[in-house]
């Protein structure tokens, strides 16, 4: 009989075999226990769909505690001042804010991500996809990530923000360096690189804000500069954080969903043909691509009130709760035959976009971006196949491939 502790010990984000395929361990963890204490990270960790689903919606927990308590009050260390630019960059990020600031900023941002606004963007998004996929067709063999998904998703988000397309390479590099800070296991080298990138990013965005102030273009950054909401004006720091989180979230997750999802599609015989042949609409395919090999594997909340109990475990104010999305998305209590990649599943009520007030503001956009991509690939490459076995970046939280080389 294998003990729970032995299974927890296999949850090792520094183990390459775990990163290559985390699902056997995640499945064992979920079946062994709904919640466990991760000694290495100091987190109560949730494994099952219902607990994750409920916790995402539970307003007694938040994405931050600093609006209510000091670090010292909760017995936590002050953030490391060496990484001040990184801290500054996320200070006003929607992902780190709670009401009322979250409500105020999200309301401004969400206007451009409404289903109606996103539908209006469709022709432009299809234009980006067509241009890049036509180029991939000329190449014959191509890397779906660098030849398509990255330039595509950055072009989309930058066109919404009003960032010049010529600057997208800069943003990609900064974003890649910064998001490594969200891993469970980081080094000072990674932290320093993220901090430098954040400093450059802040500098760049401040110049952009000045340019938009001088010459408004009606796009999101320009609108955030201009907007006065109930007498409230966004500060420059708030605009900087808001812009950056949209770039980071707006492409890292989309790229990884496309990469992870198309890998799964092509490794499961017959699934791509179901899309190419029209049996499964691209719009439907998106949902299984989001579920089966999640681009985000862990998301945290902090307990803000007394009396919270999750999966039978009493928690106290300041406790950090980590939700294992990859384990939850394969929970047999919620999904029939959860390990089976069924492109026609079409279940939209998964937790791929989170839940509660931090539910992905870009969900309608992301769904449309992926749908357009899958449809564009199916039109051009009915016989698409893997040119080589892809490998994953050595990261657990943000799960994505180093490359996805395809051929027809």
């Amino acid at each position, binding site marked *: 009989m294998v003990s729970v502790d032995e299974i927890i010990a296999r949850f090792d984000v520094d183990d390459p075999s775990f990163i290559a395929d985390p699902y056997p361990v995640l499945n064992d963890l979920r079946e062994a226990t709904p919640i466990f204490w991760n000694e290495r990270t100091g987190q109560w960790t949730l494994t099952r769909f219902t607990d994750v689903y409920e916790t*995402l*919606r539970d307003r007694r927990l938040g994405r931050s505690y600093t609006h209510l308590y000091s670090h010292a009050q909760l017995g936590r260390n002050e953030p490391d001042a060496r990484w001040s630019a990184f801290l500054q960059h996320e200070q006003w990020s929607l992902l780190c804010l709670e009401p009322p600031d979250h409500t105020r900023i*999200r*309301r401004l941002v*969400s*206007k451009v991500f*409404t*289903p109606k606004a996103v539908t209006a963007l469709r022709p432009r998004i299809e234009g980006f996809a067509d241009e890049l996929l036509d180029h991939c067709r000329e190449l014959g063999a191509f890397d779906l990530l660098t030849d398509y998904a990255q330039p595509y998703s950055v072009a989309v988000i930058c066109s919404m923000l009003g960032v010049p397309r010529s600057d997208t390479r800069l943003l990609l590099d900064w974003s890649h360096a910064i998001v490594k800070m969200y891993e469970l296991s980081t080094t000072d080298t990674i932290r320093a690189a993220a901090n430098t990138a954040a400093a450059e990013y802040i500098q760049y965005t401040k110049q952009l804000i000045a340019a938009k102030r001088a010459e408004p273009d009606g796009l999101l950054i320009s609108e955030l500069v201009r907007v006065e909401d109930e007498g409230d004006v966004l500060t420059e720091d708030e605009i900087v954080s808001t812009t950056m989180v949209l770039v980071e979230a707006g492409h890292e997750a989309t790229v990884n969903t496309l990469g992870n999802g198309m890998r799964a599609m092509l490794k499961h015989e017959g699934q791509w043909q179901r899309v190419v042949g029209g049996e499964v609409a691209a719009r439907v395919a998106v949902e299984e691509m989001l579920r089966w090999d999640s681009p985000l594997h862990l998301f945290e909340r902090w307990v803000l009130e007394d009396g919270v109990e999750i999966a039978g475990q009493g928690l106290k104010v300041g406790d950090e709760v980590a939700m294992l999305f990859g384990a939850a998305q394969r929970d047999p209590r919620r999904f029939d035959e959860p390990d089976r990649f069924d492109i026609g599943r079409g279940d*939209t*009520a998964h937790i791929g*976009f*989170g*839940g*509660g*007030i931090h*539910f992905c*503001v870009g*969900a*309608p956009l992301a769904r449309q971006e992926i749908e357009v991509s899958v449809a564009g690939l199916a039109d051009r490459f009915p016989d698409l196949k893997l040119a080589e076995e892809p490998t994953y970046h050595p990261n657990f939280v943000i799960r994505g491939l180093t490359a996805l080389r395809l051929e027809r």
Partner: protein
Amino acid sequence: MRVEIDAGSCHGHQMCAIAAPEIFGSDEYGNAVLLIEDDLPAELESKARRAENNCPERAISIIDEASKG
């Protein structure tokens, strides 16, 4: 069967308006507005369930009054 929205919970994600545009609209902040306040026609029941399941805030309730006879 009819639908209720808890306005205090709604945060304007608009997933209901995507899942069931016949039943849900949205106000200027994106918050859900019920378009059909009476009993739902039978053909919209599965869409209503889908909207309920897709709500990030659990702000949608489906009231099944059939049991009242």
